[in-house]
């Protein structure tokens, strides 16, 4: 009988880690539905590590908005450091010890004291976040695409954090032995008087209850990640590591197009043209109409997005009332990818056409054509997500597969084709300005 708690703890830990890992494997599978992307990791490896250290670990872009940035750093540092305590909790749970590290003496007190202080700071920061979302109602959290699950998700994360931090403090408060040690109870020591009138047995019961609720809460939260925007706490790292190191203005050249252009320009014999026809019939698709046409980094981007909306708040199209919202592009991409994932699960590992695609069913053409490609969204993203590349890949699909650009753009393009300028001027007149008086 005495091993019941240990066994229960082991089972809970085993099941929750197992479920987490199985979802993580699914996440990997879904990201790999994206097409290949040549990233040569042998060059610039240092730069990539440096970017990850600076942007994800160092939160350099978060603090561009200083107040919320600082609050976010508190929650983030709190999250990482308090997790050291999890190690003790897991060992205690598995082998039935109580505060196995407490033998470390003063250092243990120092650790617990810092956890307690951080827990209070996290509570404050998270409360401010809740107020921003629910009382001040910061504008960028309230566009149409944020209704329903995204709003609930954001609030749930805050509630999770408030509950977990409170349980941690209460667990310490009601631990009579720990309070008597008077080593590290820098915050809980002040809460303890509220509980002084309870019997030692009652306090012990409470301590056990808080302890179990805390660890079960942590494991629930871990498993919640896959379904939530909170996934960014893990994916921000690979996302910043793999992010493009090129100038933002560089839009990669499609290799499949290069092949065809070379064929068209170099070989005019009928033989070659037939060849070219054959080649182009080989399932060549230009641009993206669905998630499987995007590359894996774009899909990783979608899973990493935490829907903060900084991108949308600086988007010139969005600021001036157009439908385009870079955040919505990322959210739609993830939603569609999840739909495809469920489809694959249901159909024993292979995707069965559901007659839907990312374009039209999730992202409208009006949104895509409103983009000025100004890179403000890319610049602003705290974890180097690139919504612009998805927009441009979808435009490629609209133009090259469907020939459905807005009429004015078709005019512009036929001008370029006919006379080498986006306007209908003769190429022979390009130097006329030299002799004109203006």
């Amino acid at each position, binding site marked *: 009988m005495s091993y019941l708690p240990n066994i229960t703890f082991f089972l809970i830990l085993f099941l929750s880690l197992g479920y987490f890992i199985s979802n993580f494997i699914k996440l990997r599978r879904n990201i790999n539905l994206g097409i290949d992307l040549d990233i040569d990791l042998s060059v610039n490896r240092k730069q990539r590590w440096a970017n990850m250290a600076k942007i994800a670990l160092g939160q350099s872009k978060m603090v561009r908005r200083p107040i919320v940035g600082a609050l976010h750093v508190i929650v983030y540092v709190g999250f990482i450091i308090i997790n050291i305590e999890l190690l003790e909790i897991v060992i205690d749970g598995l082998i039935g010890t109580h505060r196995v590290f407490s033998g470390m003496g003063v250092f243990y007190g120092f650790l617990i004291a810092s956890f307690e202080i951080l827990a209070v700071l996290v509570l404050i920061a998270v409360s401010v976040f809740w107020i921003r979302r629910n009382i001040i109602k910061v504008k960028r959290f309230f566009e149409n695409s944020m209704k329903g699950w995204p709003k609930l998700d954001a609030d749930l994360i805050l509630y999770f954090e408030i509950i977990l931090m409170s349980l941690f403090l209460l667990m310490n408060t009601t631990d009579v032995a720990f309070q008597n040690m008077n080593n590290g109870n820098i915050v809980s020591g002040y809460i303890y008087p509220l509980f002084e009138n309870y019997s030692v047995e009652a306090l012990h019961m409470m301590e056990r209850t808080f302890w179990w609720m805390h660890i079960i809460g942590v494991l629930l939260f871990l498993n919640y990640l896959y379904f939530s925007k909170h996934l960014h706490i893990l994916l921000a790292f690979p996302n910043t590591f793999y992010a493009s190191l090129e100038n933002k203005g560089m839009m990669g050249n499609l290799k499949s197009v290069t092949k065809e252009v070379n064929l068209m320009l170099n070989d005019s014999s009928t033989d070659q043209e037939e060849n070219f026809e054959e080649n182009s019939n080989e399932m060549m698709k230009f641009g993206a109409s669905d998630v499987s046409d995007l590359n894996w980094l774009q899909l990783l981007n979608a899973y990493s997005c935490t829907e903060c909306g900084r991108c949308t708040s*600086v988007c010139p199209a969005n600021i001036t009332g157009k439908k385009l919202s870079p955040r919505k592009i990322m959210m739609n991409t993830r939603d569609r990818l999840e739909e495809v994932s469920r489809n694959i699960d249901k159909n024993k590992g292979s995707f069965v056409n559901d007659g839907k695609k990312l374009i039209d069913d999730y992202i409208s053409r009006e949104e895509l054509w409103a983009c000025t490609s100004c890179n403000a969204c890319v*610049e602003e993203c705290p974890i180097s997500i690139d919504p612009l590349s998805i927009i441009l890949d979808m435009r490629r699909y609209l133009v090259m597969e469907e020939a459905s650009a807005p009429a004015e753009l078709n005019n512009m393009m036929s001008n370029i084709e006919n006379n080498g300028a986006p306007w209908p001027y003769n190429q022979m*007149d390009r*130097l006329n300005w030299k002799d004109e008086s203006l």
Partner: protein
Amino acid sequence: MSNTLKVNTMADYIAAGKSPEILFWIGCAGSFDDRAKKITKAFVKILNSINVDFAVLGKEESCSGDPAKRAGNEFLFQMQAVSNIEILNSYDIKTIVTTCPHCFNTLKNEYPSLGGNYKVYHHTQFLKSLLNEGRLKIKGGSYKGKKITYHDPCYLGRANNEYEAPRDLIHKLEAELIEMKRCKKDGLCCGAGGAQMFKDAEKGNKEINIERTEDVKETKAEIVATGCPFCNTMLTDGAKTIEEERKISVMDISELIANAQEL
């Protein structure tokens, strides 16, 4: 100063058995748009005044392909790029300077993997280097003490991280540079990028160029300087629409320098 501009084509240079220091890539706006042609001329006047040996492609220049690429037509872009690269390489061009940030971005970032490897400079970068080398002298002239604000073209700023060269040139004019609340990395687009220049905007509650012109207005500057023919058009239209009692004039940095030196 004489009024005739000295402009030679690459073909002229080859015929004379010489090669120029730089190729000036004019771009479609600079060649055909009435407002942008003035920018082209101003830049040429500066180059002429300090005897910079430059050539243009003239009738052999064609669209860089940027608007087609941003509109999604990768075919047309690469067709343009490959034929431009063929011409540039046949003249053995090493260095290109352009007054258009869109051409600049495309030539610099997107031509190399198609076989076009050149040193590419925006004209403000090139003017800055001439200044550093002591070849170009800038005095403030009529702009001394004037309030000037600077609008960052997206394709020069965020796209290629050049924020300082244009500002350094404005400082040389002894003008008072006032920054807009959204500037440098946070600069707001004029509304023309990504092929928007060639179409009407989608439905919204405001035009982007108006939003941006209001930023300009807020600085109380008399002049908004920029380094892009498209930004120039958008802001000029914006200034006309806002119709202020106090006129905002939109000027390219090369025009400011040429005017100040009374070229």
